[in-house]
């Protein structure tokens, strides 16, 4: 039971890390390697507001989300839309996007270093024990997991129930045909990309309550997010959630029952197995 809950909490953290990238890669078709940097920036905002004015990170996210949304919208329109226009195929767009966002990640690290230095930013928020079914857990991790459920649930409902959401899913499936049925592909792609950036930054704010970050840790989160998105299936919200939870449960199980040293090995073993037997990811569609 303890393993189950700890694993689900960790899975919630992973879902927060990966959901933004899924929107950006799966729907806006931008493989954003600077994703982790936005997560760190969100974490820094939470740190700054908390240490400077004792503002709860749970409130900071309402400042972080619109800011990150606007900034990502701008990045998409200025930097990435020309690539989308120019690209003759999805493959070419992917290569161009990877190169551009790789550069963007260096730029972001540099800007963050200049703004707030390379020191660790770490603070204590909601680091209190809570009892669930007789076992002890950290309140800040529980909070992040609950927020992950709310964010992912909200996204899923929006994508499946609203007109804009369905249009966005149509873009994910067939960007060329979507235009034929009157969907404004450029605008909605920008929306999906900006939304992904906002979700990532909010995730960063929440995660910073229990993880110690510094300006250059972003790449670690990009990698983890990439693994989860690919395991779950590109462009599918359910897949990302399921993959994140599976990864959280697996790592906790291995750490508790076998050896904490093997968590990384177990995670990548699962990744390899999924790629071998379902290369399109758990919920992904086969490409022709």
């Amino acid at each position, binding site marked *: 039971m303890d393993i189950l809950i*700890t694993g689900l909490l960790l899975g919630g953290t992973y879902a927060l890390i990966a959901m933004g990238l899924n929107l950006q890669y799966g729907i806006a078709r931008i493989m954003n390697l600077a994703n982790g940097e936005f997560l760190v920036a969100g974490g820094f905002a939470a740190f700054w507001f908390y240490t400077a004015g004792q503002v709860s990170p749970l409130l900071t996210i309402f400042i972080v989300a619109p800011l990150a949304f606007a900034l990502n919208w701008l990045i998409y329109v200025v930097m990435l839309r020309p690539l989308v226009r120019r690209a003759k195929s999805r493959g070419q767009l992917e290569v161009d996007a990877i190169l551009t966002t790789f550069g963007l990640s260096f730029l972001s690290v540099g800007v963050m270093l200049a703004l707030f230095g390379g*020191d660790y930013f*770490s603070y*204590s928020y909601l680091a209190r024990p809570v009892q669930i079914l007789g076992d002890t857990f950290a309140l800040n991790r529980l909070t992040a997991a609950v927020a992950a459920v709310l964010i992912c649930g909200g996204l899923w409902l929006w994508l499946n129930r609203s007109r804009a959401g369905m249009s966005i899913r149509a873009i994910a499936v067939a960007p060329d045909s979507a235009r034929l049925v009157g969907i404004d592909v450029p605008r909605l792609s920008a929306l999906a990309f900006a939304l992904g950036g906002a979700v990532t930054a909010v995730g960063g704010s929440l995660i910073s309550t229990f993880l110690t970050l510094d300006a250059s840790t972003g790449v670690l989160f990009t990698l983890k997010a990439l693994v989860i998105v690919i395991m779950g299936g590109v462009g599918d919200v359910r897949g990302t959630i399921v993959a994140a939870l599976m990864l959280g449960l697996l790592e*906790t199980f291995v*750490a508790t029952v076998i050896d904490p*040293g093997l968590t*990384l090995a177990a995670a990548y073993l699962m990744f390899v197995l999924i790629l071998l037997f379902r290369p399109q990811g758990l919920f992904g569609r086969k490409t022709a």
Partner: protein
Amino acid sequence: MNRRTILGTVAALTLATGLAGTALAQDTLKIGAVGPKTGPLAGGAEVSFWPNVQLWAHDVNAAGGIDVGGTKYMVEIIEYDDQTNPGETIKAVQRLATQDKADFVLAPYSTGLNIASAPIFQRYGYPMITHTAISDQIEDLSNKFPNMYFLLGGATGLAGGVVEVLSDMREAGEIGSTVAMVNVADAFGIELAEAARPRMAEAGFEIVYDNSYPLGTQDLSPVIKGAKAAEPDAFVAFSYPPDTFGLTEQAKIAGLAPKAFYTAVATAFPAYAGRFGAAAEGVLGAGGIHADGDAFKEYAARHMEVTGQAPDFWASAPTYASFQILQMAIEGAGTTDREKVAEYIADNSFDTIIGPIDWDENNANAKYWTVGQWQGGVFKGVASTGRDGAVAAMPKTGWE
């Protein structure tokens, strides 16, 4: 690449008013500084290394420069970011030697980057006074690289210090004999854990939980829960900065509160007390310093004033001391000839802010701090291999 030139205001004023008669170009010594500003070790380097480079250059120039055979030279620092990548460290040193024509290069930050760049320091004849290299291969290294010096100590000494402190506490009846030991699965953690195991056994301690975890583990609660289930009298973690914070927080949450609680790197950082406040009281950690000594207090005040941040209670002062040694050696040798300066370092002992430094047969400082403890908001040295000023370790009384 990050390149910045620091010339103290005082230095500029002195030159401007014409006190120094000769041309500016000849009045500066170019000193190279290579270290992580980005990458995994940037956080540590921003605490222990870079502020000291800034402080040292400030101090030297404020005092009128380095005296080389009667002529005063201002120092000009040329900084490079090595991205915590050994290949980049080597390239930067090469660039400093060949393009920037640096007179001297400060030793880089961390064990790995020092070992990786030792051959290139050797090739250009730069004396390499390491301040943050902890290794048990000091003998090998100093045989291969006679220009290499070690200030911070070895893994055996650090691990031995932990066992010594635990033994003392057990003798005082404060703890029993069971220890839970975890380590980060990286060179530093593995080396210390391996050095600690036989010493623990020899001292009659029983290791009831012994595990490692990968670098960058995002959830350390299974580790802490496993350690707690073993009900140890002491908890020892050979950890790196992010996991030092993570393990402490989880221990607090899970209620793992043995009388002796030890985490390694970053326990001595001001940020540790900043994050955990009163809960940090009684936590043992790697390093330590004679925190009550006037030399350290005066240094800490200057560090705060010049760099705007406090030094840590372990590597900061030795880092500054290593720069002091280089300065004293240049002045003592009366020349900027690297070979003569290196010779001078080897043949002399130095009086620094961490006290007198003598070299043993392996060009290492044999007297260093091994364990410290947060007591009353200050991280005080509780064990060393021969430094003055150690205070007694006290048992930790919970997390409140």
